[in-house]
């Protein structure tokens, strides 16, 4: 009996202790926020002044007290993220000596700690930490590897893009949008390496499809012939990505490779082929598109009518309207911008 009463008392005490802990947490959080705010009031103007008045970054670095290094790095990063060019370089020059404090975090057991440290040192440390980023591409944690890949996918690290491309199979679960836009961030300097990757049959198809999308974002005209060469691949995802690339950078020269695909069994390949043919084909292709129009697939119907509009085949569109059904609705939507 006594132990049960004791248990109730302990539970009641635990409740109160929990509550007290929450209050202490709040007090601590408030104190930390106040301290950071005070440091922001001091360091924001100093760093902004460094950008504008041409003073020597090292002299400002010397003013940072050891106990405020962490907060100052945070503040500098916050400012640097919004800057480009020489302004950013000056902030980086100021903060780079302070980044040493994050080196132990790069060896931390928790992947989140490693990732955070890696992000800061690569963002603010410039070329000095490029090799570090390459090393962390092979980190066992996907999160850390992602941070490393993003750090290297910048114009200033264009020479390292091969390292990222070589490891794209690690990022199979990422959405194609994420992979491709990350690679496109590097800019046109990365285009030759990406074209070679797209053309390499030994690479995983999901990676090649993501690269095709990157080349599309970069509008790399030289990628058109490479994309056309992939249209006979067995992988539908790769074919669709190459068709989308062709619809942006292709020319009449690739139209012949696209035409057979408007009858493909897979609706999304058909749809992408219609769009590409609308961009690359001639007025004669309108008949082909109308013939291949699938009255049961809304996506294909929409793509087909948009392709007809791109080919200025208004007469064919008008015919579709009179025939009724799904193609007619798609044609109205395309012809009149949807106006009923």
């Amino acid at each position, binding site marked *: *009996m006594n132990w*049960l*009463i004791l*248990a*109730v008392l302990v*539970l*009641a005490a*635990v*409740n109160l202790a*929990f*509550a007290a*802990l*929450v*209050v202490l*947490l*709040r007090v601590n*959080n*408030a104190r930390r926020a106040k301290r950071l705010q005070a440091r922001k009031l001091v360091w924001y103007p100093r760093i902004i002044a460094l950008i504008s008045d041409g003073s020597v970054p090292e002299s400002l670095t010397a003013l940072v007290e050891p106990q405020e290094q962490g907060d100052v790095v945070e503040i500098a990063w916050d400012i640097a*993220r919004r800057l480009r060019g020489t302004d950013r370089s000056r902030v980086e020059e100021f903060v780079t000596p302070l980044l040493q404090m994050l080196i132990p975090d790069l060896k931390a057991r*928790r992947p*989140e*700690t490693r*990732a*955070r440290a*890696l*992000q800061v040192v690569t963002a603010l440390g410039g070329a000095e930490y490029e090799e570090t980023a390459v090393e962390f591409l092979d980190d066992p944690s996907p*999160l850390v590897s*992602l*941070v490393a890949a*993003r750090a290297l996918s910048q114009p200033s690290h264009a020479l390292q893009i091969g390292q990222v491309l070589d490891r794209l199979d690690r990022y199979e*679960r*990422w*959405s*194609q*949008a*994420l992979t491709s*836009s*990350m690679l496109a*961030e590097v800019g046109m300097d990365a285009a030759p390496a990406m074209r070679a990757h797209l053309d390499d049959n030994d690479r995983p198809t999901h990676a090649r499809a993501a690269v095709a999308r990157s080349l599309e974002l970069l509008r790399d005209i030289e990628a058109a012939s490479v994309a056309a060469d992939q249209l006979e691949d067995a992988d539908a995802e790769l074919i669709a990505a190459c068709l989308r690339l062709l619809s942006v950078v292709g020319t009449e020269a690739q139209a012949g490779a696209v035409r057979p695909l408007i009858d493909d069994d897979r609706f999304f390949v058909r749809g992408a082929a219609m769009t590409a043919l609308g961009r690359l084909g001639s007025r004669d292709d309108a008949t082909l598109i109308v013939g291949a129009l699938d009255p049961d697939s*809304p*996506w294909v*119907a*929409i793509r087909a009518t948009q392709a007809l509009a791109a080919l200025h085949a208004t007469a064919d569109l008008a015919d579709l309207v009179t025939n009724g059904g*799904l193609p007619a*609705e*798609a044609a*109205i*939507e395309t012809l*009149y*911008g*949807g*106006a*009923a």
Partner: protein
Amino acid sequence: MIDPLAAFNVFILFYFAVLNGTYLILSLVAFLSLRKYIDRLESLQIDDLLASSGGLPISLIVPAFNESATIAPSVRSLLTLMYADYEVVVVNDGSTDDTLDALVAAFDLEPIVRVPTSNLPAAAVRTIYQGVRHSNLIVVDKENGGKADALNVGLNYSRSALFCAMDADTILEPEALARIVRPFLEDATTVAVGGIVRIANGCTIDGGSVDDVRLPQSMLVRFQVLEYLRSFLASRVGWNTIGATLIISGAFGAFRRSVVADAGGFDTTTVGEDMELIVRLHRHCRDLDRPYRIEFIPDPVAWTEAPETISQLGRQRDRWQRGLAQVIGRHRRMVMNPRYGVPGMVALPYFVAFELLGPAIELLGYVAFVAAIVTGRGSPLYIVAFLALAVFLGSAISVAAVALEELSFRRYRRFRDLIVLLAMALIESFGYRQVLTWWRLRGLVSAARSDLQWGAMERRGLERVALGGAQAPGGDQADTASANPELLAIGDGTHVPSDQARPN
């Protein structure tokens, strides 16, 4: 001979020990998980990630029934979200007031032809409109069919790979869409993501966004604030950590369109269509041996209005319980079926034992407790044990939920609000939980009688949740409440909401 009352009392003690013990473990798991999650967010720099990826196109589907008072500011707010590529599809579900007129007038809508891209069965569509000034605003006017039916129509007419289902008077934070899309970017097998729903009563709302977060004046709503914290930050985060998210709030969830369409869209025959869809997605993907992820993440925030009167709250909880019963009844084949992994072997059995049957067992437990005292057959040992397991352990879980909020997002910045929340946590076991249990029991009985009626809910409208929680003039709008059992069990097994409104 064994005294039946004594035997039952032992069973009840065991029941409360397992129930509250489970929640304590979930809270602990949630603590570890939240800490990791917040560090992960910091290391990813979510804004940079989304800026570089351009996000993924997404359609916001907003069912609306008799929302004329609030629909225009709600939609205006949705059109200002910080996201690169999205469309807003408002589905006017046969409103009998002037909801459609309000939309046409506010956004200069004109009729269009738009090809449906899927053909989920739904009530007839009358006209489709598009905004002249906002070309990413589509309004579909249809015959009344209920919320699930309206969502299916929205799905039919949306054009993006992802869609977000929400309620018409839910307020999304500006970066909420960007945040809820992140799991889809990081893992292409993600099929559904739920965000956190918080209570807007008492907050300052200006121009369709929550400016100042405060606790409401009403004790009843304060209790609900606490329930939401417990349910979202402890329960859902905990279940999510073990891969067993069974509920994504109907007020705010994002989905991969193709998978939902393949699975048959929203079920129009249940009052718990949001939970039903998630359970069905688990079943669908596992039946097809398709890799998939269903996630709950706590940083995308939607704000909703909570019931302010006892009767509204009672009807809401009654409805949630009915929804839960329908969902479990429909997917009973998954329960304890190894084919369905953790959701089938752990989460669903838990929901059956503690969420579905919980109200009956708990209420009998309370009755037996009183009977034992009144008849003098309850030993002091039992009384003390009951208090320890049912009351103090339950309170500890609630206090832990407040601690989780303080450790993670700290939305309630005022010190006074924090103290009030802690006080609520300590006192809610004395009356409030028991009343909730009674309402849930009524819902269970209704479900047993296959009662599919929806309770009515009188709504004040979030635009009129004025400074400090005072209500601006203009009168209340009568409305009715729709399904969305936000079954957020915790401690007492209470369910938390996203409740939105309209009749079936």
